[in-house]
C-alpha cells in the first residue's frame, strides 16, 4: 500500500499527466535542448581587427615602413614578426561556457593569403549566458603574410577582411570538454 498509494496520489495531483507527474512543471533538460535546437550563430563572430604588429600600432607601422629604403623593406619582409589581433565573440548560449583554446590560421580573404598562425592569448576565457567579449589573439606572421601586410600598409590601408581557417577549438561546458577541428569562418 505504501508503494501504490504514493504513485496514485502523484498522478492524481497532476491530473493523470505522466510527463508532468514524472518531470514536474519545469524541465531544464527540455529547456536547454530546445534552446540548442534554436541556436542562432549568425552574429557569433564579429570582425577581426589587427591591433599591433611587432608592438607597433598600425599607424606607427605605416610611418615606419614608409621611412625604409627598398633594401631595408626586403630585410623587414624576410625576418620574423608577431601580431596581436582582437575578435569579438557573442555567446548564443543560455548557459556559461569557457573557451579553453582557439587556434587557427588568419587569412586575408581579399588576397587569399594566410597571414599568420594564431592562438588565443591570456589563457581560458569564460562567457556567461549570452555574454559578448573581445578575445585577444596572438600570432606569428608567415612570409606571404608579411608581404601582403606590407602591400596593404604601403597603400595606406590595413587588411580588414580577415578570416580564420583550420580552426581548432577547446570548449568547457560545465566540465564537459569539447575539442574540435573545423573549417573556416
Amino acid at each position, binding site marked *: 500500500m505504501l508503494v501504490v498509494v504514493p504513485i496514485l496520489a502523484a498522478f492524481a495531483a497532476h491530473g493523470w499527466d505522466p510527463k508532468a507527474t514524472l518531470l*514536474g512543471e519545469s524541465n531544464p533538460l527540455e529547456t536547454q535542448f530546445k534552446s540548442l535546437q534554436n541556436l542562432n550563430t549568425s552574429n557569433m563572430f564579429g570582425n577581426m581587427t589587427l591591433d599591433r604588429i611587432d608592438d607597433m600600432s598600425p599607424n606607427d607601422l605605416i610611418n615606419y615602413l614608409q621611412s625604409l629604403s627598398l633594401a631595408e623593406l626586403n630585410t623587414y619582409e624576410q625576418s620574423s614578426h608577431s601580431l596581436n589581433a582582437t575578435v569579438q565573440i557573442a555567446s548564443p548560449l543560455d548557459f556559461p561556457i569557457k573557451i579553453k583554446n582557439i587556434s587557427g590560421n588568419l587569412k586575408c580573404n581579399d588576397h587569399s593569403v594566410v597571414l599568420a598562425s594564431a592562438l588565443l592569448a591570456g589563457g581560458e576565457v569564460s562567457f556567461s549566458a549570452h555574454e559578448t567579449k573581445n578575445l585577444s589573439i596572438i600570432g606569428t606572421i608567415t612570409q606571404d603574410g608579411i608581404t601582403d601586410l606590407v602591400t596593404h600598409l604601403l597603400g595606406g590601408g590595413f587588411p580588414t577582411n580577415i578570416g580564420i581557417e583550420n580552426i581548432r577549438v577547446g570548449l568547457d561546458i560545465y566540465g564537459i570538454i569539447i575539442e*574540435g577541428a573545423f573549417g573556416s569562418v
Partner: protein
Amino acid sequence: MKTNLRKLVRTINWFGVIAGILMIVLPFAGRWWSLTVGTGMVDLTTSPFGITTTVFGQTMESTLARYIFLGATISIIIAGLFVLFASLLPEQWWSIRLMDFGATKVFWMAIWLVMAPLIGAFIANKVLLGGQTLTIYIVGATISIIIAVLSKYLASKFLKKWWSKRLVKLATNVLLMIAGLFIVLAVCVFIVGKFLPSGVSGIVPGGTLTINVPYVSGSAVTTFSMSMGGGQATLTLPISMGLMSGFALAIVTAVFSILAWIYHPGPPEEKKKK
C-alpha cells in the same frame, strides 16, 4: 521490584532498541550516494528517502519521485517503531511478527542502493559495447538459485537454533536477489545483441564511443569522437560517484537491525519449540 527490573532489562533486545531508534532517525540523516557529471552539468544526490537533482544549475522536481520517497520514509519510520516495540517487549506474542516486518528493511535498502549503480555501471561499461554472450549470466542465475534452494532445504532439515534459521533465510534471499540480477543482465545482453549488434558505438556512423563509468564510487571519463564535414570533434565527459555519510549510518543501522532480528528470542513458547 529490583528483580523485576533486572529481569526486564535482561529480556529487552538491546540491538533492536538501538536499531529501532536509528531506523526512525535514518530518513533525516542525509543522502547516501552522489553522482556528478562534469562540474555542475548534472548533480544528483539520493537515498531511499529523497533525491536532489540539478541539471545545468537548475533543480529538477518530480512529484512521482517525491511521493514514492515519502512512502518509503513513512514505511521505514513505521518499521523502526515496530522494531522498537518488539525489542522492548520481546516476550509478547506479536513481537516476532513486528520484528520480522521491520528488521531487514534497511538491510535491503542498503543492498539495493549499492547494487543499482553497480549493475548500471556494468551494463554501461560491458553490456552496451556489445559482444557479450548469454551463457555466463544464465549459468550464474542457475547456480544462485540452486544454492538458494539447497540452503533452504538443508536448513529446514538440520538447523535447530532459531537464529541460524534466520541467518540462512537472509542468505537465501540474498542469493535469490543475485539470481534476479543475473537474469536482468541476461535480458540486457539479449536486447543489446538483438537491436545493437555492434554495440552503442555503431549508433553514430563515423563515431567512436568509449564508455567508462565508475562502479558505485570513483571517477572515470567517457569519450565520444566523431568526424563531421571537414572536421573532427571529441567530447570528454567526466563522471564521478561516491557514497555519502548517510550510507555509513545506514550500514550501522542495518547491522544492528540484522543482529536484533537474528538474536530476537520471541515469546517463551516459540523459544522452547525452536
